[in-house]
């Protein structure tokens, strides 16, 4: 699970709604996977990222310092773009957990795959 993916995931436990985001990340195994740098792609991604969630996740994984918000004129700042490329696409959480911030429910991540299946009682109808 890459951090860009984590940025999209939200808890669906019943009654939680938007307070189910972001999921608290805890990783026991992380791998760095080199990915070809595509600056245009990163430029387009930046506005779609929920920045606070990304900061929190990057911090938990003790990654390189992520700026508090996108730098002014980031579209042309290669250093910034490369940093974001690394954080969003090259860090893979292989083992760990995701926790619903509202209900505390834990979802396991195993072999890079989060299992977000809820039991019938927990599902929102």
């Amino acid at each position, binding site marked *: *699970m*890459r951090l*860009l*993916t984590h940025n*999209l*995931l*939200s*808890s*669906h436990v019943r009654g939680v709604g*938007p307070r*189910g*985001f972001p999921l608290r990340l805890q990783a026991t195994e992380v791998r760095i996977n080199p990915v070809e740098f595509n600056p*245009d*792609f990163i*430029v*387009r*991604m930046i506005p*779609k990222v*929920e920045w606070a969630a990304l900061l929190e996740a990057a911090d938990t994984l003790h990654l390189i310092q992520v700026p508090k918000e996108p730098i002014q004129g980031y579209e042309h700042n290669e250093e910034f773009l490369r940093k974001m490329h690394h954080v969003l696409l090259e860090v893979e959480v292989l083992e760990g957990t995701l926790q619903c911030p509202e209900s505390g429910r834990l979802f396991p991540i195993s*072999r*890079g*795959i*989060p*299992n*977000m*299946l*809820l039991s*019938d009682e927990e*599902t*929102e109808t």
Partner: protein
Amino acid sequence: MDSKHQSNYKLSKTEKKLLRKQIKARHTLLRHEGIETVSYATQSLIVANGGLGNQVSRNQLLPVLEKCGLVDALLMPPNKPYSCVRYNTVEESKKAYDTLNGKEIVDDLGQKIILYLNFVEKAQWKELGLQTLPPGLKVIEEIISPEDEKMLLESVNWTEDTDNQNFQKSLKHRRVKHFGYEFHYESNNVDKDKALPGGLPDICESMLEKWLKEGFIKHKPDQLTINQYEPGHGIPAHIDTHSAFEDEIVSLSLGSEIVMDFKHPDGMTVPVMLPRRSLLVMAGESRYLWTHGITPRKFDTVQASKGHKSGIITSDVEDLTLNKRGIRTSFTFRKVKQTPCNCSYPLVCDSQMKEAPASFPESDKEALQLEQDYVHRVYEEIARHFSSTRHTPWPHIVEFLKALPSGSLVADIGCGNGKYLGINKELYMIGCDHSQNLVDICRERQYQAFVCDALAVPIRSGSCDACISIAVIHHFATAERRVAALQELVRLLRPGGKALIYVWAMEQEYNKKKSKYLRENRTSQGMKEEISNDTSVQELLVKELPNVGRQDSAHSVSSINDFQDGGCNSRNVANSKLPIHTNRTSFHSQDLLVPWHFKGNPGKDKRVESLGSLGSHDPSPVFHRYYHVFCEGELEAACQTLSNISILQSYYDQGNWCVILQKV
């Protein structure tokens, strides 16, 4: 082109014919096997029509090839109508190419074969990876002496008169005799109330006591079936009925060795050599979940180096050869089970599947249970096989994905094996599916995927530029749940975002054209399947005789007009049973169960009406998947119940109803 001839030299008629055949072999290899031949000389050659799959053995082909030079390696993949030879030098390879093209040899059945050679870049095959025996399987070699083997074989009286209740039946393919209890082939079960007089033969009793004491078997059997297989005989792949017999099933092989195939529902096949005088012990998973069978043929593909030792037949194509079968007699000992089966493999268990047959759901709770039993559990079991039949992306879906702007965030809800996750590298695609096993396959392909329910997708609202839902919503058992699934898709979209939805159509013939599902008769459930090895003579790669046209069997197909009059029958009688569909025919009900057969079984395209309970007619396992097939306009109407969307496109594509919608 033949290197001997100048470009201005006129080719004779036979030379032209040879060239044509050679080119045909080239095309067939590429099209069906993915093997690319090259026009320049290399050390390696593909020998079309010279393969184990068309009855040419190693010791026939090798001397022929060695006449042209030093052979580095001869690779003979099992069941293929070609081999690959690598010579020590290019010159020797060229000599083979020049002299052996069009050469006539004789195969193991005495038939004339013509070889066609083409150069290839490399002579290697992907290793299938280490195989292990199915869990619970053991082969104990030399468990009896040759003297005992002789004695046992002579003790079988095949010509006893038929009033004797130790039934001698002559089945189409082999001779059988039963002791202890009679086995009924129509029901694949024993009559537990009617024990046969005499029990098991005395010689067997002492042998079984010995095996018990020595720990080879754990339980004392009370039923014996003696099978005699002549070369060419076999037994279709099956699981011994769970409720009929206890866990341990043992089989003693006499007279000749044989290769028995074990298949797992996910498609994995393990061929196991059973030597003479060996005892096969099947317990646990190998007894309850894997099918076992013997292909009806006169030769088995075996490992040249291992001879007649037991074990898995490797996929090492450098070591394979053919072994002629002899008459094999098996003594299969089983213990009759007096209580219902309670194993851990419910999907293939007749006791556990005998619960109320699937019926049209009356409530959300029943719908959930139906989906659990007839969608989720089945996909988990068949994931790998299912994945192997889902490899060609559909063009319109590819078109949709490729038209999305670079940098779009796209979710594939119900992504299956991840078929669409890598189509457009300019997108950031994440996939999710209910099946852990299918998501594992996505992961193997390095895609971003997770496990979840399509009615509760854990993605934040309004975050996706696009979503796709391909062949998913038709698995939901009520109209409310289907709409709820659509609602989830729309929730994920940002304003202006698009969703593409595909569902199976009730109408499998549209505008007088039959869908691929109806047309594809030879290969079932998908595109290329390996040529079944149930036929005893494999097809040649390049035929000498004119091709006899393939015949499509006639199917009754209802056209779209049938439905326009009555409208789609969406009324379902309360508590009505869900009908079981016959594959490759048109649908007669909107809610139904569609069979999925274990890979490689014959008869899956034929009209086998399985009566809902396992093992009644077809001894090989069938999984049923629940579907609600959609009528024309039904998907559109369902989408239109959602307030915040507009439908951009609505069309029919190869047996599916499709909608592209946009969130406003």
